[in-house]
């Protein structure tokens, strides 16, 4: 039993989806829907990080002198971009995908056409990545206008954040393809996403963490995002960021393959 589970897991790891133009069709379908609801979506994307920024940056920040040579608002500005993208990717990947997979039967209909289940899955992950990155960009614009983001280094930082959106999109869609009910997402949200938004060098430097928590924190994808984004924006750029990027790419690839294998089996069984 355990043996076959491990074998299945390894097989899933090496499930490389075959894709073609269908990926674009799925992306377009989702974009069309997004365009209809763009006003509410974008407003929400702007409002949420602003709330954090005011509460933490200007409220709590008054009591904090400086963190790593930055005002507290400046220090948490990159975290605003990262957590916003992470949350959007996770929510859209889990709740959004699961709804289309179960309640709306959207994908069951799509696979009656030349678009393959593989393409549906990749199109979905790409869309979720896009939507999350739109939220990263929106927050970046606001923060730049407020003078909280230095323009130098913003391009590579956004590159890392795009990778991050993909990683959380694939994790989200993977969970959606495993889930038996919406409850699954509540657990992963409060057990995984929420803690990560707090303990990955987002609101205080990693050096403040106790030693063992620090090791643990190094496994989490968001830690690697924060390390490299901070390096590009405020630090001295060393080749360390390569480790962060390789780690993120590996995670993205692993979860994309796992999600694809599961999703396809769930759609056509």
């Amino acid at each position: 039993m355990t043996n076959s589970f491990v074998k299945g897991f390894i097989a899933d790891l090496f499930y490389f989806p075959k894709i073609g133009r269908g990926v674009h069709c799925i992306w377009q379908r989702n974009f069309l829907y997004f365009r209809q609801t763009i006003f509410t979506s974008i407003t929400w994307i702007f409002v949420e990080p602003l709330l954090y920024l005011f509460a933490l940056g200007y409220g709590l920040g008054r009591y904090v002198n400086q963190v790593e040579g930055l005002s507290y608002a400046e220090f948490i500005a990159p975290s605003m971009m990262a957590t916003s993208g992470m949350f959007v990717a996770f929510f859209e990947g889990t709740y959004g995908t699961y709804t289309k997979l179960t309640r709306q039967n959207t994908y069951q209909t799509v696979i009656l056409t030349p678009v393959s289940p593989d393409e549906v899955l990749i199109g979905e992950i790409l869309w979720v990545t896009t939507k999350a990155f739109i939220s990263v960009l929106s927050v970046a614009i606001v923060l730049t206008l407020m003078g909280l983001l230095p323009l130098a280094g913003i391009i590579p930082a956004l590159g890392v954040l795009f990778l991050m959106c993909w990683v959380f999109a694939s994790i989200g869609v993977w969970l959606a393809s495993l889930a038996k009910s919406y409850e699954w997402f509540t657990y992963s949200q409060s057990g995984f996403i929420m803690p990560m938004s707090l303990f990955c060098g987002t609101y205080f430097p990693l050096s403040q963490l106790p030693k063992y928590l620090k090791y643990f924190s190094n496994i989490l994808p968001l830690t690697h995002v924060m390390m490299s984004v901070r390096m590009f924006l405020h630090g001295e750029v060393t080749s360390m960021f390569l480790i962060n990027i390789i780690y993120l790419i590996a995670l993205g690839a692993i979860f994309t393959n796992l999600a694809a294998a599961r999703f396809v089996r769930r759609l056509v069984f």
Partner: protein
Amino acid sequence: MTTNQGAEKAKVIEATNLVKNYGDRRAVDGISFTVHAGECFGLLGPNGAGKTTTFKMIYGSAQITSGELFVLGLNAKSHIQKIKSSIGVVPQENGLDPDFTALENLQIYANYFGIAEKAARDRAMELLSMMQLEDYAEKSIDTLSGGMKRRLTLARALISKPKLIFLDEPTTGLDPQARIWIWDELRSLQKQGTTLFLTTHYMEEAEELCDRLIIVNKGRTVAEGRPQELIESYVGREVVEFEIGPKEVEYFVSKIKDRFAYQVMRNRLKLFVRGQQTTRDAINEVSSQNVTMRKASLNDVFLKISGYELND
């Protein structure tokens, strides 16, 4: 060789010993059939007989456990994506996208087939008016009635002008007008050379539409043929139905069982009139207050084959 190839071309679907297991449960247990170009072929059976599962294997929404399946000359196990580009499917659940309007549903679906935007819009408008839905083009799916949703689903299946269309219970849950309207639409599609393959548990529908059909029960084929042939070989020309008391059933059955084909359904005894027999012969056999004579129908075949008991 040439003639042989010609004969091959006429076969649109060729299924041999199709089997489908869901875990330990066998949903389809070795079904074989051939569908020819231009005909309307029916897959009949009670709920849970394996109709939808068989269908799903043919259009790639379920994996084939074992057996051989060729659709439009292509092996369904290896060329399912190619097959899907030349067929139209009306699934049992409409699966219309609630996030979009009727027109957008068709346009998005057309995009999946790679139909260019302008051509897709024209085709979608043409189909909406053919299905008498042009006034609902900009309406959201939730505002459509059951019949309208079914028509829109049929329109969606036609978007790529397929030569082979699958219809899984096309008129289940529709009112009589909507049903007849869909039948007429299907007949005119067939006249234009489209091959239709449908499942239904309405015998009336099968008699109206199907050139040939198979009846499946518990995952197996139990009968195959033209509706009229099936009626004649399984029941006969006419049916005489007697309402009798439960205690009399045994007596009358023993009296007629050597001469008439019959079926007992609770307090009703059905005698099937066939060959040289006449209705009068049958009527004289049983004394009953309530006698009905009628033409034999596919319904009688179905009840005779799959039994009177509820079997889901």
